[in-house]
């Protein structure tokens, strides 16, 4: 039998906090994981939108309705395409086929034959030379001269609104993570203060035996770290399957309604680091709390 058992001078394992703190931290880590994942997904979306849209234009040719409308629309489409190809700085021009247009509206209107007969506006996808500096206002005027009813969209307006919204949500998620961290820290402060009150006599004995503040603080900190890590692992083991399930469910929804909600590698790393972050937060908070309390007591 080992004569000197591995032990702590303070019997913190028997405290009520040892039972409730891990579950509270688990809940906080679960919520934080969802918030962090949202932040990274949104960040990824914004970057993807920005990357996809920069250097592209969409030219929309309104359809002519009525007899011979299709021919008229085709002539205008050809005229616009020619003008775009002759414009310096334009790298590629591609008019979307009727079948592609039908596919685009399919999520909203379905795939019946009636949709194919609708007078859909024709779209031209334009890729710009990344180094070119094109005067879009001037180009828009020139397009209007060859084909009235043509509109040019550089996606900036809707993109900036979308990006602003996403950024706001991103900041909100960051705020939620900070709030979760604060609540976790406050819970640890409360648990540590309770523990100090419960073990006041032991702390006094340690004090009179010549223990430094940090000797006592370290024991609370180590205990808080262990509880934080335990809670963190419980939380993350619940959060990861949830995130995977949400991502899978999003993929099952027909394309077009939702962008791909995939979490980047960095995002996964951030999420999996949360238990360690919870442990460290609990440890540092406990240490500071004990030091402050002892400074008032001793």
């Amino acid at each position, binding site marked *: 039998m080992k*004569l000197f*058992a591995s032990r702590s001078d303070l019997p913190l394992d028997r405290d009520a906090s040892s039972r409730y703190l891990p579950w509270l931290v688990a809940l906080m880590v679960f919520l934080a994981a969802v918030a962090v994942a949202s932040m990274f997904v949104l960040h990824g979306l914004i970057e993807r939108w920005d990357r996809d849209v920069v250097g592209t234009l969409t030219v929309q040719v309104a359809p002519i309705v009525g007899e011979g409308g299709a021919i008229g629309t085709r002539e205008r489409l050809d005229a616009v395409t020619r003008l775009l190809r002759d414009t310096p700085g334009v790298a590629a021009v591609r008019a979307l086929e009727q079948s592609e247009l039908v596919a685009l509206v399919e999520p909203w209107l379905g795939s019946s034959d009636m949709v194919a007969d609708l007078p859909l506006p024709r779209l031209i996808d334009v890729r710009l030379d990344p180094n070119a500096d094109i005067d879009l206002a001037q180009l828009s005027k020139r397009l209007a001269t060859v084909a009235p009813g043509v509109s040019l969209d550089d996606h900036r307006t809707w993109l900036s609104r979308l990006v602003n919204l996403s950024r706001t949500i991103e900041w909100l998620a960051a705020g939620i993570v900070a709030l979760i961290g604060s609540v976790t820290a406050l819970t640890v402060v409360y648990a540590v203060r309770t523990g100090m009150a419960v073990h006041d006599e032991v702390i*006094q004995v340690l*004090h009179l*035996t*010549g223990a430094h503040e940090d000797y006592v603080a370290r024991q609370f900190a180590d205990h808080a770290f262990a509880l934080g890590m335990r809670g963190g692992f419980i939380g993350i083991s619940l959060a990861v399957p949830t995130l995977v399930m949400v991502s899978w469910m999003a993929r099952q929804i027909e394309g077009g309604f939702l962008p791909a909600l995939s979490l980047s590698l960095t995002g996964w790393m951030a999420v999996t680091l949360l238990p360690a972050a919870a442990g460290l937060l609990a440890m540092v908070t406990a240490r500071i709390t004990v030091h402050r309390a002892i400074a008032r007591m*001793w």
Partner: protein
Amino acid sequence: MEQTPVTTGVVQFESVGLRYGTGPEVLQDISFALAPGSFHFLTGASGAGKSSLLRLIYLAQRPSRGRRLLFGRDIATVQRRDMPAMRRRIGVVFQDFRLLDHLSAVDNVALPLRVAGVRESEIQKHVPELLSWVGLADHLQATPPSLSGGQQQRVAIARAVIGRPDLLIADEPTGNVDDQIGMRLMYLFEELNRMGTTVVIATHNAGLVARFSYARLHIERGRLKRVAMEAA
């Protein structure tokens, strides 16, 4: 001629007074000095102020007035960060033992050494040895609640002396043990004293005081009276 205060005593009190809150002074104008390596009994009736005086000596209490010097240093000027090192030079046997119930006897006794950062190999060598000396060789792993009052007292004494303190303060250290064990503990204190530890023992036991020829500090209603050595 103005007298220069002696600052070489292990303990020196100058006009120390103590009151709890706004109550009356429980200790009044306490002045004394304990020379290094001296042995003193502290006597007095219950409620005379013995425990309060001991608390002032082992730095568990601040005085309301007066000056305390320990190991030649004025406590009022000692930095908070230096206080633990000073406390480690004092061994205390509390009247109520104050053992940690969740720790075994060996771990209780090892506490001052661990707090001081002594190597585990040293701890494992000396702690069982001392516990055997106080007659607890068969109770090394026992926790305080499973020990009798006398056994707990011996663990508390072993904890107080394990670090070979410069100053040992014991509050009724033989109160719960039979005469034979009581004498054995007194010999332990004497042995420590011979090695240079200054010893102060608070006791009600008149027989014990009479048996050992050491100086006596007698306290009466909060005032200290120094009594000459008792006849052995």
